[in-house]
C-alpha cells in the first residue's frame, strides 16, 4: 500500500467511461443494472463469466451488447453434445497452394476472438469443454505442438440452463474454477417487463449509441492496476477463502457442516481483482471491505463443493457464502469480550 492513489480527476475520467458503458448496457437490456455492473466488473478484472439462468432472460443479448459497446470481436458457439474441440479451437485442414502443393493449414476456430459466447456450455461433452481450459487460463491454443496466442483481451462468457439437465454434462471443477464469476440471472420485475413490452417490439434490442474505444478500455485496465487494496482487506479476503475449507481453524460451523471442499487460491486472486473492479465502478481508488462482500458470493459460489447435507437442507452455495460473510468479521482486532464498538458518543 505504498503506491499513491489515483487523483480524483484521474478517477473521474475513468468513472465517466464506466458510467457511459453501463448506461449503454442498461439501455440495451432493461432492468439488469446490477447484472451489468457485475459483468463489467468481471470484464475489468479480465475474468471469464458464467451466466446461469432460464432461457429468454437476456443472457445472450447481454453478451452480444457487451461486445458491441466495447467494440470487441465477438463470436458465438452454440454448445451441443456433438460439438468437437476442433469446432472451438480450430483445426488443420489440407489446402492446395497456388503452386499446386498441398499442405496442412491451421483454420482458427471461433475461440480466436475477444469475446467468446459459449451458449449452453454444459451441453457439450467433457472433451469439448476441456478444450477451453487452456484458452481460458493461458489465453492460447496449442494444436499439433504449436501454440497460438489468442487476441487480447479475451473473455469467455458462457451461459447455462439450470433446468433441462437431461443430456447435459456438468462442468468439471477445473473449468468452473476458471470462471471468475458465476452470476445467476433471475426474472425481472413487472415494471421492467412492461417497459420491455412497450419498447422492444419483435424483441430486437436497440443499437448502442456510444461505444468504448479500445484505448479507453485499455485505460480502464490501467486504472485497475492503480486501485489500492489495503493489507487489512487482503487479509479479509485470505480469511474468507481460508474459512471455506472445513478443516481450517477459521472455518465456522456452517462450513464444517455443509462444505466438502473449499475454494482455491485462484478464487482469492479473482476476488481481489473483482473487488478492485467493483471499487473502480463505484468511483473509488481503494478497495473496501464492502467491495469484497459484494463480489464474494459471485466469486465463491461455483467453486464451493457442498456435501450431501447441504442438498438435504436445500442450502445453495450462494446462500452459504452470504451466511459465511456474516460470520467472518472484517477485522481481526482482538477486543475483550465485553468491549463493543459502535456509533455514538464515547
Amino acid at each position, binding site marked *: 500500500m505504498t503506491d499513491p492513489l489515483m487523483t480524483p480527476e484521474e478517477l473521474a475520467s475513468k468513472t465517466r467511461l464506466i458510467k457511459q458503458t453501463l448506461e449503454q448496457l442498461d439501455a440495451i437490456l432493461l432492468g439488469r443494472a446490477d447484472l451489468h455492473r457485475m459483468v463489467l466488473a468481471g470484464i475489468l478484472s479480465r475474468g471469464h463469466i458464467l451466466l446461469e439462468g432460464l432461457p429468454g432472460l437476456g443472457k445472450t443479448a447481454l453478451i452480444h451488447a457487451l461486445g458491441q459497446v466495447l467494440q470487441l470481436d465477438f463470436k458465438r458457439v452454440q454448445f451441443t453434445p456433438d460439438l468437437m474441440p476442433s469446432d472451438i479451437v480450430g483445426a488443420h485442414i489440407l489446402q492446395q497452394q497456388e503452386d499446386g502443393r498441398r499442405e496442412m493449414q491451421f483454420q482458427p476456430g471461433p475461440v480466436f476472438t475477444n469475446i467468446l459466447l459459449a451458449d449452453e456450455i454444459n451441453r457439450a461433452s467433457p472433451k469439448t469443454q476441456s478444450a477451453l481450459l487452456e484458452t481460458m487460463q493461458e489465453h492460447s491454443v496449442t494444436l499439433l505442438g504449436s501454440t497460438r496466442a489468442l487476441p487480447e483481451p479475451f473473455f469467455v462468457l458462457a451461459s447455462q440452463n439450470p433446468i433441462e439437465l437431461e443430456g447435459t454434462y456438468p462442468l468439471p471443477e477445473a473449468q468452473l474454477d476458471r470462471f471468475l464469476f458465476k452470476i445467476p440471472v433471475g426474472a425481472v420485475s413487472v415494471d421492467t417487463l412492461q417497459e420491455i413490452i412497450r419498447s422492444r417490439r419483435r424483441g430486437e434490442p436497440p443499437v448502442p449509441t456510444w461505444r468504448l474505444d479500445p484505448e479507453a478500455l485499455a485505460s480502464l485496465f490501467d486504472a485497475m492496476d492503480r486501485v489500492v487494496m*489495503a493489507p487489512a482487506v487482503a487479509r479479509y479476503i485470505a480469511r474468507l477463502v481460508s474459512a471455506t475449507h472445513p478443516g481450517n481453524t477459521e472455518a465456522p460451523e456452517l462450513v464444517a457442516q455443509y462444505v466438502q471442499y473449499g475454494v482455491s487460491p485462484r478464487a482469492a486472486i479473482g476476488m481481489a481483482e473483482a473487488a478492485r473492479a467493483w471499487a473502480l465502478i463505484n468511483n473509488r481508488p*481503494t478497495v*473496501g471491505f464492502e467491495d469484497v462482500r459484494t463480489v464474494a458470493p459471485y466469486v465463491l459460489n461455483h467453486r464451493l463443493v457442498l456435501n450431501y447435507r447441504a442438498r438435504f437442507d436445500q442450502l445453495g452455495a450462494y446462500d452459504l457464502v452470504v451466511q459465511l460473510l456474516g460470520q467472518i468479521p472484517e*477485522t481481526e482486532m482482538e477486543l*475483550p469480550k465485553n468491549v463493543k464498538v459502535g*456509533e455514538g*458518543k464515547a
Partner: protein
Amino acid sequence: MDTEKQIEALRRRLVAVAAWDHAVRGTTVWIFLLGAAMLVCRLLHYRLTPAFVASLPLVPILLAAAAILAVRRSPTKEAVAALLDAHFTQGGLVMASEAGLARQWPEASLPPMAVQWQGRQPLLVLLAAVSFLLAALWVPLERMGAGADLPLEIEAMVEQLEERIDLLKEIELIEEEQAQEWKTLMHALQQESSGTDPVATWEALDQLEKRIEDQAAIEVASRRQEVQKREELVAALKAALQAYEENRETADAAMKELSTLLQKAAEDNPNLKALLESLAEAGAQPLAAGGMLDHKTAQMLAERLSQMTEEDLMRMQQLMQQGLGQQAGSPRPDDMESLKRFLEENPGCSNLVACAGLSPSPGIGGVSRGPGTAPISWLNETSEEGVDFKEETLTASQTDSLKESLLVGESLGAPEVDSEAAGSTGGALAGSQANDSAAATYQVLPRHRDAVNRFFNREEGN
C-alpha cells in the same frame, strides 16, 4: 475531526476500556482468592490482619498489570483504521488516509465512534466476589462448628475417671492426696482442652487413665497375693482345728508351729499384726506375748481371716466392674456373672480365689491338680487368658527401648505385651519374634493341664 486524530482517539478509548475490563476481571479474581485466603486463615486461627495487609500491595500491582496488558494488546493504528473503514463502509479510504496515501482526497467526515463496556456480567461476578469476601470475613464459623476454639467434650471420660478414682480411694487403694492430685490434674485438662487440638488432651487423659489402671493393677495384684496367703492360713487353721478334735497332742504341736509362723508373719505384715492385736482385745489369747494359739483364738482368727478375704474379694470385684485391675490377670467384669453362677452351682468350692479364677496360678501342687473345668474345644482358638508370664527374648529394637526406659517402680502386675511390636521390619522374618523358631510356642492353659497330663500318662502306661 481529522481521520488521523479520530483513529488515535478511538485507539486510546479502546485501550482505556480494555484496561478497565482487565482491572475488573483481575480484581474479581483477586477478591475471590483473598476471600479464600481469609477463610483458610480463620479456619487455621491465623490472624487476619497481617494477611489482609500483606495483600494490599497487590492492588496497585493488579491495576498496573491490567494497564500493561491492555497497552500490550492495544490494536494498531492500521487495525483501528480498518475498524473505522469497515464500520462506516468507507471503501478503504480511511485505511489509505492512515497510510498517508490519500492526501489528494478530501478527509472523510466520520461520526464519533463509541467504545462501550458491557459490564453487567463482570460487575455481577465482582459483586459475588465481594460478597464472598465479606462472608469469609464475618460468617461466624464458631457457631457453625468449623474450627471453633471450644473446649473438648470430655466430660463423660472425666466422670468415668472420677468414679474410678473415688472407688480407689473408697477401698483405700490410694491415699486422699493422690486422689485429689489426679482430680486436679483432670480438671485442669478439662479446662485447657481445645477443639482445635484434641490430640494433646486425649493423650493426657489416656496417660492419666493408664496411671490409674496401673495403680489399680498393682494394688489388685498385691491384694490377690495377700488373699492367697490368707486363704492358705485359713486352710491351715481349719486343718489344725480339725486335728484338734481328733488328736490333741498332734494339734498342740500344730498350734504351736502355727503360732510361731503367725508371729513371724505378723512381723512382716502389719495387717496381720493389727488383726492379732484386735483379737487379743476381743478376749483371745495374745500371741505377741509368746502364748500358743488356742482353739478359740484359732477359730476367731479363721473367721476373721475369711471375713477379710470376702471383703477383699468384694473390693476386687468392684474394681473389676470399673474395668480396673484387669492387667493383673483377673477375669473381665462381664465374667463376674458367670462366676457368680459358678459359685452357686459349686457350693463346696473350698478355695474361693481358685474357684473364681482369680488366681494366676491355678491348681495346687502340680499340673495334675488344676481345676480342669474348662472343656477342651477344637473349634475356636483358645484364649490365652490366665496364661502365666511367658519368657520372651527381646529383639534388638525392644532391647534398645528397654535400655532407654526409665524405672519408675516395680509392679506385681502382669507386663503389658505390645502385640504390634515386631522383631524385624522387613525381609522374610518380618513380623516374627526372636523365639519364633521354637517348635512350640503355645503354653498349656491351666484348665487344660489335667487333660494333657492324663494324655501323657496314658501313653506311658501303654
